[in-house]
């Protein structure tokens, strides 16, 4: 006769939608957001974003995947977690953005901020090779690829002169076994 209580109502999580897929992947429920905008108020990077964090969450609710995966926001987010710890509904917003960025990479979306995407890729390639980063090599390769070699030529040298650059790379004992970790992650296509 009467309506079921609020708590007993089935949650509105249309299966197969972006919000539900994000929930399954990360455990974060974007449908709890009531647009208080605390996340956007505290975010240090909104000046460079096309959608502030609160709008990202709204767009996820509305299933606007193409807009999100092509956005600047997902690359400009620094994962500083200011939004995540302030959310009154306990949504780890930074992790939702991580998940969107990962989707963008997997689906081959052209990153709106190429240098940032390139940096992440080169960093991980560098780690794959020896299990540890070799900053000097990474810096040189990255600068060559981005054409920043000239603009930033002095940086590596200045770090070196300060004694803040390793000359020889370090490596884990068994590089082959280490690379298996990367291979198994690829085999799984990331986390479900």
């Amino acid at each position, binding site marked *: 006769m009467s309506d079921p209580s609020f708590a007993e109502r089935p949650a509105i999580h249309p299966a197969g939608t972006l919000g539900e897929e994000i929930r399954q*992947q*990360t*455990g974060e429920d974007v449908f709890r957001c009531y647009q208080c905008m605390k996340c956007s108020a505290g975010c*240090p*990077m909104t*000046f460079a974003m096309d959608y502030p964090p609160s709008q990202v969450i709204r767009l996820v609710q509305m299933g606007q995947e193409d807009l999100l995966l092509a956005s600047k926001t997902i690359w*400009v987010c*620094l*994962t*500083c*977690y*200011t939004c*995540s*710890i302030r959310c009154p509904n306990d949504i*780890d917003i*930074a*992790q939702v953005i*991580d*998940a969107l*960025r*990962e989707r963008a*990479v997997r689906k081959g979306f052209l990153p709106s*901020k190429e*240098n*940032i*995407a*390139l*940096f*992440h*890729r080169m*960093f*991980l390639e560098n*780690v794959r090779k020896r*299990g*540890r*980063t*070799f*900053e*000097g090599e990474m*810096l040189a390769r*990255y600068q060559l690829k981005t054409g920043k070699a000239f603009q930033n030529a002095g940086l590596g040298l*200045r*770090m070196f002169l*300060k*004694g*803040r*650059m*390793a000359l020889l790379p*370090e490596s*884990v*004992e068994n590089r082959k076994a*280490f690379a298996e*970790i*990367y291979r*198994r*992650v690829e085999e*799984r296509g*990331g*986390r*479900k």
Partner: protein
Amino acid sequence: MRRIGYYKSCSLNASSKDYARSLEAAFSALHTELVPIRDWNCCGASSAHSTNELLGYALPARNLALAEQQGLTTVLVPCSACYSRMLQTAEKMRLDDEAAREINDVIQPLRYLGTVQIKNILEILRDEIGPSEILRAKRRDLSGLRVVCYYGCYLTRTPHAASFDDRENPRTMERLLELLGAEPVEWPYKTDCCGAGFSLSEEPFSTQLCEKLYDMALRVGAEAMVATCPLCQTNLDLNQDRLRREKGISFNLPVFYITDLLGLALGCDLGARQWRAHFVDPRGLLGRHALC
């Protein structure tokens, strides 16, 4: 002698070698042996979790498994980015059995069971060493040194794990420096992001975030900044050099690692090499306070 596990990490082996120097000297003065994780690997930092969640858990999990195998129950992780990744991975594996199985599957034949405690430098100094022992080992007072404490993002903002101090207004570093005789000044930006993640890929973003911090530090009357994270220190130090070269703006705020100052108070003599490694040379400031 006390023994504590030590995840030295990529930064402390290269761009922040100077952090490793002052940190290791300070712990030796505190009669604590730091035991490195054997065969450790890079934690993947921001790049792994930013683009591949499973890899972002697997890389730290390998280190956790190695530490466990070695019988280390408490591990010091000085870099805040590594600390965040190790802590979040440990919490993920503790709370989510399915994820733990998948992560262990990826790092096999290694396997992490969940017995390692991950701690940052301030936690170790507060909880494992303790104020009375630090006072006993103190050889020199840092009196008159006015500094702002910079915690950055990852020490206290650990979304799925409890924080070791207040998330928005931590005071562990201030208390430690007060103990050493310094004068930490309160300021509103102690946990605001410095943009270290963009130090190489989008420099203008990181200098913009840093400028705001320098400006406030000077406004509250600080003579220097103190950081615990190698990436924050490098970024805060390097961006002053960039701003000076590119825009002719000089803030002249030395950026210390917490163990630089702890070491000074404990009487560790690291010589001129330690201060030359800084982009903003702190020797003038230390000289004014008769500290070098």
